[in-house]
């Protein structure tokens, strides 16, 4: 019966046997399946085992937090974000935790932002609106906000995000779990997942890499990026490391710096912020080129010391960066090797390999989606994304890989990120000169 239903290419693999299957799909079995299915489900299982004590720990921390009622400084650096500001203040006014100050830094906007910001400040909807006439880049804007923040905790947000009602409370509470937690990352999801194919695919990607991926890395102690869109920090640590350095990729960079100081980074999946993803592939490509270049610039170049033995060497820092670099940079190269391997050694069986490979990835995507749905609190909405899953193979397997490879190539050989207009050239010139 099975033979009648299964397509010919699947049947083929049953006939040739498991050993050949492993030989041909070594890349999939070794890296993708182990990392994204086996490890994920093992951790899901462990988390399920400890769910009761986790809940208790949360309740205890929450009580301590509300008892102390510390001032939280919400800082939002940005350029030309004026249009989002009013909505943002409204979103924050709905928060369950209200003892916060809101500091907005306008980094040399050339639109209405200064007028809007000043008005909101006068109306008392923003506590501090700081306008920089000259643009200094996102890092300097964040540092300026930090300089004037008075809170016990700093929450860094992007202006175009909106938040679940308990997001601020949830992103700060983990500091009460453990003294050594230096930063907490919030969960970023795609708000406009319905806008276009491009945003739907990104929504799935975010669920995989952010929502689930970070639960896993956080659990393993190798979580290495607190998103700029939504993260919480202890100001004394930020002061110690001098705040943010020049980007792009400054959110990943600051996380590594905090790790290097000996602090833990915690991911809080239930602190949820929604962001708008680029709805066109052209814009998305630009964004990803920038992000991917920063892996080379920061994880490979700037923070290369974590890979070598020295006084402050730390295994989890090593693994945190290594996992990141390995799964992005090294596997990218490995994929090319794999392609060559298949093309040369199995030229005659390509009609069985290509569809099978595709099938494996689609099936894996569905299985992964299963783990996403186990964790999520927006199950109903996210179920709608299931129909796009077959396309994810093309999206991550081909599109993102292509963009990534281009970015690595440009950054590795040409240090392309220093020309990015995302930073003012005065900062890039300096950063390049000093190899930052």
């Amino acid at each position, binding site marked *: 019966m099975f033979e009648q239903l299964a397509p010919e290419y699947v049947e083929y693999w049953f006939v040739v046997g498991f050993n050949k299957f492993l030989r041909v799909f070594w890349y999939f079995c070794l890296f993708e399946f182990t990392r994204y299915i086996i490890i994920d489900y093992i951790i899901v299982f462990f988390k399920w085992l400890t769910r009761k004590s986790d809940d208790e720990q949360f309740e205890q921390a929450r009580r301590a937090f509300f008892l102390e009622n510390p001032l939280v400084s919400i800082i939002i650096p940005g350029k030309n974000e004026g249009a989002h500001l009013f909505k943002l203040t409204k979103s924050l006014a709905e928060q369950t935790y209200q003892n916060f100050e809101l500091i907005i830094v306008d980094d*040399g906007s050339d639109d209405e932002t200064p007028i809007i910001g000043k008005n909101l400040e006068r109306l008392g909807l923003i506590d501090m*609106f700081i306008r920089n006439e000259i643009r200094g880049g996102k890092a300097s804007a964040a540092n300026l906000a930090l300089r004037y923040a008075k809170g016990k905790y700093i929450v860094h947000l992007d202006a175009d995000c909106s938040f679940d009602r308990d997001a601020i409370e949830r992103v700060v509470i983990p500091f009460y779990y453990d003294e050594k937690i230096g930063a907490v990352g919030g969960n970023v999801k795609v708000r406009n997942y319905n806008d276009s194919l491009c945003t739907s695919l990104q929504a799935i990607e975010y669920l995989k890499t952010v929502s689930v991926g970070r639960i896993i890395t956080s659990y393993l102690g190798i979580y290495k990026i607190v998103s700029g869109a939504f993260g919480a920090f202890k100001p004394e640590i930020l002061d110690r490391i001098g705040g943010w350095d020049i980007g792009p990729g400054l959110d990943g960079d600051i996380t590594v710096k905090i790790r290097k100081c000996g602090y833990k980074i915690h991911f809080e999946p239930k602190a949820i912020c929604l962001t708008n993803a680029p709805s066109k592939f052209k814009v998305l490509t630009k964004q990803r080129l920038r992000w991917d270049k920063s892996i080379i610039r920061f994880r490979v170049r700037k923070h290369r010391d974590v890979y070598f033995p020295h006084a402050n060497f730390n295994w989890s820092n090593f693994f945190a960066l290594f996992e990141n670099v390995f799964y992005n940079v090294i596997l990218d190269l490995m994929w090319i090797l794999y392609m060559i391997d298949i093309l040369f050694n199995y030229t005659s069986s390509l009609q069985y390999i290509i569809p099978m490979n595709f099938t494996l990835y689609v099936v894996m995507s569905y299985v992964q989606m299963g783990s996403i749905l186990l964790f999520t609190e927006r199950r109903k909405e996210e179920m709608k994304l299931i129909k796009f899953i077959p396309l994810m193979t093309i999206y991550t397997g081909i599109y993102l890989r292509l963009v990534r490879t281009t970015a690595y190539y440009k950054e590795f050989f040409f240090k392309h990120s220093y020309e990015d207009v995302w930073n003012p050239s005065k*900062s890039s010139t300096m950063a390049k000169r000093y190899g930052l």
Partner: protein
Amino acid sequence: MFELIQHPNSSSKTLSFDNESLNVVVINRVGELDVDSLQNADALLIQTTTSHDANELIRSIRSNRNRLKALIPVFISSTVSNLQSIRYQFDGVFSDDTKEILLQRLKAIKSRLAEMNYEIHQLDYHQSLLQSALQFAYSREQVFEPVRNRFSKIGFSYPFLGAILKEEEANRVLEILNISCTEGYTTKKAIEKTHTCKKCSGGYLNYRECCPKCGSSDLKTEDLIHHFLCAHIAPEQDYKKEDTLECPKCDKELRHIGIDYDKPSSMHTCNDCSHSFQQAEVKALCIDCGHDNELSQLGSLEIGAYELTPHGEQIAKFGLHIQKTETTSKEIHTVSVQILELFKKQELSREQLEKQCWEGSVRIHPEIMSHFHIEQQEIIQKEICTIISKYLGKADVLSSPNTTWYRFLVYDKSPENIEKTGSIIQNNISKLITDGIGEYEHPAEVLITKLDNGVDHV
């Protein structure tokens, strides 16, 4: 030429012009001003030592209730100290060089004053001021131009009205002038705009940057420095190390603005509550009453120049109520005294009075009417007739033999009703008169008697 003649009755001197008999009274001290003696003077020359005394004199001259005296030309001697600040209140500065000009001016004013009915008294104080102001402007052929004045509550003064009303009442000067404009007596040309205290309307405001949180004006302002290399940004103070600038984050020295660092903006910090902010709140502290105004609370005044219109000139010459005379005269049925007597006789001749008939009379104190010009008296007479006729029936008869005497016959009213009517009429007429000339005891007397065969109460 002018020449000095000793004034016969006082220590002040009189200047006379040789060819013509123009009599200019010289006043050297505040105490010398004898208002009654102004009757014969053509002009006054103030020759006090200080401008303060001169100011006091011009105030008492211009506020005289007798308009003839209030509008007299007044010159100030060039020897008065600090006269610049008050010269706009005078008709000229007297010195050897200006004698001839002032003489011409004096003659011009005199002839214009002669054109006017300046005995006309108004019904209320403000209208009276307005009338005088219009006459002043007419006689001087002058536009009411605002003059910057450090002591005026709104920072500006006007000739004439500014001399009468105190400096704290500068707002009322504007009110009167604005009425003259809305009534069409003057046209207004905006010259300046001034902001005023919400609480006391004072124009003396101290504007300064304040902390938006606590309102303190004790602020520290610092430039922000952005170090390009490490993206550190903080107030300049954070970087200061002896004579150099050193980055507190990366310890590098900042040598060159534009290459190492720049100053993207600045921040204020409140020394009282240590709040940091960029947008200081500008507030206006009222020097007069101490109220700290938010800018949005401030009032605003338009300071304009007011020029007489032809209509305004008419008012200056003939009085404020000329037009109203015409409009109020209609629809009041009065009869001559003969007719009233006829009606009365008819009524008395009836053997039996079936209905009750009353005769009323209203007498206005003759002294009151002497306060008013003849034209004005007629207006008042008509107003009184209007008041009385309001309470009369269609068949009732009203007559006014003269401006102080009003008679009427009322048919068909009960004793209680007629008594009520009498007291209402008395009240309303008294109110009309006291509104015009101020408090007066028993301005009107109303007497009502029942018409009886044979008895005449009037």
